[in-house]
């Protein structure tokens, strides 16, 4: 009669110690953060960039296997590249983004002169 009670007491104490341990130990990592709008937006962009790059790879492979015709490939590759570049640009740090925007404007200017 007593043996089961003793065994249950041992199991209960063991469980309580195990459950309570994190409450008295050192915090191994910072507290769980709440969703941060900016971090979430950044993650969204990172995922979008990865999706765009993966889509480009997939399109290349489908074109190579003959699943996508040359005409379809030419039509699809442009928007995909634009999307990939756009997300990459949005993910650049703000200062770098301004510099790269200026540099791309500078690169475009001489061409415009040639055309005119």
């Amino acid at each position: 009669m007593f043996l089961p009670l003793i065994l249950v007491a041992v199991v209960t104490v063991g469980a309580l110690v195990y459950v309570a341990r994190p409450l008295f130990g050192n915090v191994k990592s910072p507290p769980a953060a709440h969703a941060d709008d900016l971090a979430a937006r950044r993650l969204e962009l990172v995922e979008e960039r990865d999706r765009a790059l993966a889509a480009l790879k997939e399109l290349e492979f489908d074109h190579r296997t003959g699943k996508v015709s040359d005409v379809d490939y030419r039509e699809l590759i442009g928007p995909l590249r634009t999307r990939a570049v756009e997300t990459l640009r949005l993910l650049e740090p703000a200062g770098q983004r301004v510099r790269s925007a200026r540099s791309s404007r500078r690169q475009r200017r001489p061409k415009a002169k040639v055309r005119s």
Partner: protein
Amino acid sequence: VALFGHLVLVLVLGLLVYATLAGSYAALRGRRRLLESAGNALVAAFVGTALAAGTLVLAFVHNDFSLSYVASHSSRELPLGYTLAALWSGQEGSLLLWLLVLTGASTAALLMNRRLIGDVLPWTVPILAGIAAYFAFIPNVVASPFATQTAPPNGLGMNASLQNPYMMIHPPLLYLGYVGLTIPFAFAMAALVSRRVDERWVVASRRWTLFSWTLLGVAILIGAKWAYESIGWGGYYAWDPVENAALMPWLAATAFLHSVMVQEKKNMLRVWNVVLIALTFSLTLFGTFLTRSGVVNSIHSFSQSSIGGWFLSFIVVIAVGSTVLILARLSILRTPIRFESLASREAAFLYNNLLLVAFALTMLWGVAFPLVSEAVRGVPVTVGPPYYNFFLRVFGLPLLLLMGIGPLLAWRRASLRSFARAVAWPLLFALLVGAMLLRAGAGSSPPGLVAYTFSAFVIAAVTLEFWRGTRARKELGDGTWVGAFTSLVARNRRRYGGYISHAAVVLLAIGVVGSSVYNTGRTAHLQPGQATSIGGYSATYLGTTLIRSPSHDALRGQFALSYRGKPVGIVAAGKNHYKVEQFFANAVGIHTDWLRAEDVMLIADQFDKDGSVFLKVAVNPLVDLIWFAGVVFLLGSIVAMWPDAREQRQLARRSLEIEARPVSV
């Protein structure tokens, strides 16, 4: 033993209630240490449940008939293997096994996704604990496996139809599949509560769904094999409500595994995917309700019980709770991305989803209608195989065709010209096969002929995909053909693992159609020395033998089988008399021709005193492809499930990018 088991179960319930409450508070307030404590309580609950289950198994092994559950499901004569498996042969033990698997899967999910749960989805802990608390409440309050009585000298024995080797593996696998689907549900709901609907919960849910879906699929096939070999009615799937209860969540999970790819590739169908996850989990609960409540007439309903009301209430709570949560988060789930074309890979996935879900819901209606009819009109109505067979054709044939078309379509859009070019060879092959089969007489069943033609199309499409992919990889410098093939599969395991699973479904379709549409059978009354013939086979009745064992007497008729005049062997078919249970069960005799994947099944229905036997002989063409399909299915799933180092690296890189510059956008 009873006291220990009972008190440990009380402790488990207490731990799970604590994990639910503390975990909710921790998730709400962002308290990491409290969340870890709640997680530990969930792990401790698993250990406690394992102790309780181990105690019950020990009671079975020691024939402790003072436990009512042991006395009702075992006997001193029961072989050890079945004695161990008796744990899940009845209501109370099954629910205990359910709790064990659920807490075990929750523990595994916590350990494998520690960082995701701690940093992003803390609500996973209280959701898992809450569900487990419900399953711990049932054996504590409603159906205790540790209820005691005055010990009788012997137990009542085990249900004879459960005394089969498949019974030792089918229920645990089925439970692993069912219960595993709780984990993706918990991730999805945690993501919604936390408003973290990015890709992280999707990846974790997809992996768990794939794992559970594989086990559920294999369990369904093993259950079919069990029915085929032990029940002795000549079939393997009878559209029994409890069989359907396992198939419905499998279909919904199949839909999710396809549509989740659209979300990962194109960030579309986000609302649809959480709906599918919630539907799948609700269907697993509904399946448990059907199996355990005994509300429907089924060969699987081994007991009538009072837990139906509890289950129904829980299903309502889950269905309403998840619907409200999804509606509340619609604004963050919706994306402005639309389908670019109706002829694209993603559109094919959508069609496949609609067909799969429509089929699952049609089955749900077929299963629920008798219950609704009885509740409303007081008249029980049976929905039989013709209903399900009709809808199997309506939804199954287009699904089969889509399995071939989908892989040939490119993402985003396919022009008519490139589509026509992609399908040309598979179409030609399929039409050729169809014409040959028509010539061979397969036209006797138009749906069967269509199914075979579509199957040929899928096989050709899958082969072409492997061929084109391997050739492309070789051109890209992957060395030999073998190297190129290995590289192709390794670079996209999910896609090519999926194609292998498609091949398994085709094998299944060929086996099901062959054995159900083109099968033949006859019954004969034979005296020793007489023979009966069917489909080129001849069975000559030689006489009977009787083998006695402690648990049962085995009476067997011996039949000499020959095919087109050539002897192929002696097949024994008869009956087992289970002494303790006082039950007669068929022991079917099966001869398998592996080359033709065909079975000859002998069922000795009745032995008369004059030595004669009433024998049923059935020839089931291609039936063995069904079991072979199970092996191929498992192979495809393993390929798809194999850990993808690149995906892991990508997820880790994303985390680093967010941590490094969290507010730079």
